[in-house]
């Protein structure tokens, strides 16, 4: 499965494995989630 894209200023590219791991660690999901109240 391809990793999602990331944009830094005007540069758009696929996330690196490290960036994708950090995104997952932040709580990001591919499916909808509920907020922590």
């Amino acid at each position, binding site marked *: 499965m391809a990793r*999602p894209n*990331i*944009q830094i200023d005007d540069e*758009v590219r696929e*996330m690196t494995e490290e960036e994708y791991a950090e995104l997952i660690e*932040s*709580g990001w999901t591919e499916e*909808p989630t509920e907020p922590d*109240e």
Partner: protein
Amino acid sequence: MAIKTFTTGEVLTAADTNAYLGNGMAQYVTGTTFSNVASVTLLSCFNSTYDNYHLSFNVYGNSSASNYCYFQLGVGSTPTTTGYYSKGMWFDIGNAATFAYVNSDGRTTGMSLGPIGFASAGEGSYDVDVHYPFVSRNTRMSGHGSGLYAGVYYTGVTTAGLQTGTTSFDSIKLIPVTGTMYGTIDVYGYRKA
């Protein structure tokens, strides 16, 4: 620059036009447009010219339900991911009769914004004032907006936050909690004099 009161019949010079009319309270600093990304970092959006900033976000996602977003302050392309106290509170603006709480986002990893719906029809629009991000002191933020949550609720949002460190920030990173997002960010600086 102070306010100048022009008198009847006074000649409006180029210098006065540039100084008093061309320079409003808020000056455009930078902005970006993004499409189908899981995060967007806007570089060089804070500098020594201004102390206080207005950030305008227009964002929608590719997930059909329960999506929302937040942003982090950063230095260059490196965001600061800790040290925040932030909470966004969402209420139902489709319920005209009574105040109806919908949900909230309490966050220590960034500044909470609010719901972003699916496709452009569910766009969330948020305006946030950021105080002293470029100065080596705590950064305080507060804002408001509206967005479609869970495909059902048209929410009004009030949000506030604090970054407790003393880092001099010059960038922001916007992140949805799920999927990818589309939209724009615009940054304005408030004139100091």
